[in-house]
């Protein structure tokens, strides 16, 4: 197990290095610089700014400087948010995104399980069709549309929840539903089809023939054996949700990290883009590692090496 972990950690570090390098190169190729604006700056002022951020140095030197900083935990200054470092920004915003992501994931899993089980147990009946309809709706509705609709109904019309901003428990309800709807739909689809396949297996027929009650057959035998595809999806989904969602954070004015995946690119804030990409990749690597370890818990036939 220790060998497995060490191997995977080394593998993860290699992935992080590749991601940093690719991001660094791609950003420099992208047309437009961080300090281009409607007011074109006089050349001497631009020279001062470039010197301050070492942008006047050759790429290779900039790259070496950045890697040396990252190795010491320094992700550099933000070009847009002048008084803050990238580490400050991530420290301020990641906890909010993570909390919202975990809430959305819990919402998705808690809702998806009963829906998928009901759909599989009542295959081709109204419960199944209803669940499939809801899941299709969840996948098809874009976040911005669902978010706006939820604000309109539950905030403007009914006045139950705060329309936006983060802070109180009620402010988390609508963004959690918006962010969790799509993963919930995917989980429902995936678990339902996996359950339907498992319910047709010989060992289920044997369990029923032994006279086991249906809830016992479903939860003890079928569900556990249908979890592998769901677990596979859980890793990348976890990383995506906890790293923040641009649209949900934008619509509900949530002070999370997700917005920077788009706005930092628009602003050409090179250190911020690289920093958030690095954090996202690290979360993804860790989540996948955890999922791989969970496989053996769900199915003892799978061994980690």
């Amino acid at each position: 197990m220790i060998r497995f972990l060490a191997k995977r950690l080394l593998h993860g570090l290699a992935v992080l290095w590749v991601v940093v390098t690719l991001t660094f190169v791609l950003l420099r190729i992208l047309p437009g610089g961080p300090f281009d604006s409607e007011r074109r700056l006089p050349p001497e002022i631009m020279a001062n700014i470039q010197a301050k951020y070492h942008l006047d140095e050759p790429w290779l030197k900039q790259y070496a400087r950045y890697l040396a900083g990252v190795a010491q935990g320094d992700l550099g200054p933000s070009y847009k948010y002048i008084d803050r470092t990238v580490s400050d920004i991530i420290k301020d915003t990641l906890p909010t995104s993570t909390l919202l992501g975990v809430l959305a994931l819990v919402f998705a899993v808690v809702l998806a399980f009963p829906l998928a089980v009901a759909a599989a147990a009542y295959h081709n009946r109204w419960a199944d069709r209803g669940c499939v309809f809801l899941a299709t709706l969840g996948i098809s509705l874009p976040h911005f549309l669902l978010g706006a609709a939820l604000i309109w109904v539950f905030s403007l019309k009914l006045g139950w929840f705060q329309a936006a901003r983060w802070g109180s428990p009620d402010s988390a309800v609508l963004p959690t539903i918006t962010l969790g709807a799509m993963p919930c739909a995917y989980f429902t689809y995936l678990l339902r089809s996996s359950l339907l396949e498992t319910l047709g297996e010989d060992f289920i027929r044997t369990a029923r023939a032994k006279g086991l009650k249906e809830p016992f057959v479903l939860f003890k035998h079928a569900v556990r054996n249908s979890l592998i595809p769901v677990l596979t999806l859980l890793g990348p989904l976890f990383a995506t949700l906890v790293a923040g969602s641009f649209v949900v954070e934008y619509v509900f004015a949530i002070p999370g990290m997700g917005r920077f995946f788009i706005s930092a690119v628009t602003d050409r804030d090179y250190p911020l883009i690289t920093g958030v990409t690095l954090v996202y990749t690290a979360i993804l690597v860790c989540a996948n590692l955890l999922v791989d370890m969970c496989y053996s818990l769900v199915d003892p036939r799978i061994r980690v090496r």
Partner: protein
Amino acid sequence: MNLTLVFLFRKGRLRPVFALLILLIFSGCNPFSRGGDDKVFRVNLSTEPPSLDWSLATDHASFNVIANLMVGLADFDKSLKPVPIVAKSWNVLERGRRIVFHLRDDLTWSDGKKVTAEDFEYSWKRLLDPKTASQYAYILFDIVNAEEFNQGKLADADQVGVKATDERTLEVRLKHPAPYFLSIATFEVTYPQRRDVIEKHGTKWTDPENIVTNGPFLLASWKHENEIQLKANPNFFLGKPAIETVEMYMITEKTTSLALYEQGKLDFLDNYSIPTLEKPRLSKGPGFRRVPQLRGEYYGFAVDRKPFDDVRVRKAFAMAIDRSVFPRILHGGEQPATSWIPPGMLAHNPKIGLTYNPPEARRLLREAGYPEGKGFPRVTVSYNTLEHHKLVAEAIQGMWQRNLGVVVQLENQDWKVYLKKLETDPPPVFRSGWGADYPDPDNFMKLFTSLSGNNHGRWKSPRYDELLEEAAREMSEKKRIRLYDEAQKILCETEVAIMPLFVVVESTVLNPRFTGLEYNSMSRMVLRHVRPKKVSSEK
């Protein structure tokens, strides 16, 4: 519902939970009060201010916070003329080459220390210091040796022409007479700073626990990407503001901020927080205001290439635009314009420019060798990706097709890519705009001088350059107006380097419970006079 839930519900164990849910749903309970506290005023900033360091800030969100935390030497009156605020008076000497500011002696920083002339000298030299790398350093380049110091050609800051001759006197020496310099003294980047605070806290000096300010409000808290809270300054020399607390939210999505306003959770929205299509509805309600800005939108030509190297073609294109269409399609009350200097600024002259005249436009195009647009080369009109730029471009495309028989292609690009293209390879026709840093025509007109980095069309006119140079040094308003009139005629009428389209008008909406908010023509939100309507006078 899964089998377990069905089982529990049948046994009656979930019924109380279900009943509570139903009760909640149909009681229409609203956990939020719709009223609000008269001592708290809530506005939307739209976005996180990138910096509260006024030597480094460049955007409207940052300046809207700073403008309520600080006061500088001068402020604007209602007609945008500079009037003293920290300065009690000033003398313009040596035919405009030397300005002496005399400071009030009753103004203190939030930590109780007096605001001195040294604080201004330090701030201005910090703005110019190449190590600060301020984008707005050029605003002080009229000062003796300022440009050389910023370029690193001069290491000794003492040689820069700004000096505190005593605690209450600031002397500024200019390279040449600059009639607009007093307007520059209203700009936030010229506000004073405390050397001891900045040297002690470094880049963290703007954090609420470190910052020291001298304005009507104090920075109480700054939750990044979420909310800034200001508290009334009890020691502000003009009196403590009537509202105790200002909450500034950072909601980027316009429909969301409008939803909060309509829920009574926000008291003021500026143009950046109001969805365009909601403006006509809101304009019928209370508290709505349209504020014309010192900001113009124009289309420029790449005059160094065919077909726009021919002035007749440029004139034909300018005369084929019906500018009255823009307010109808943009819903913002935009003011159509054929001249470049906007209303509210010295030398604004609406009579200058080429007006809508399709027959004359067709005649000019025919004369240039393109009768009814025949044989006209393929031309691209470029703009940066934004919905209202697209609407304007499509409207103009239609007008040129109808009035000239010319079909142009539209092309839109991401903002930074677009800026790079303007710099390196300007498209035949391109969209651009300009907002005033300070309310003087010099700031608007010098965009198009031969050596200006903002002259994207690469148009050159020695006469225009001369006129601008002369107007920038002329102290008589009457003579300046005459010079700018001539320059505008060259720019928009005879040479047609650009086609001004309209002056931007911003919409704002204020909770009718409050009054006294000032929103000026440079998008500054001044909150120190805000008060609840029932309170008759300020403290």
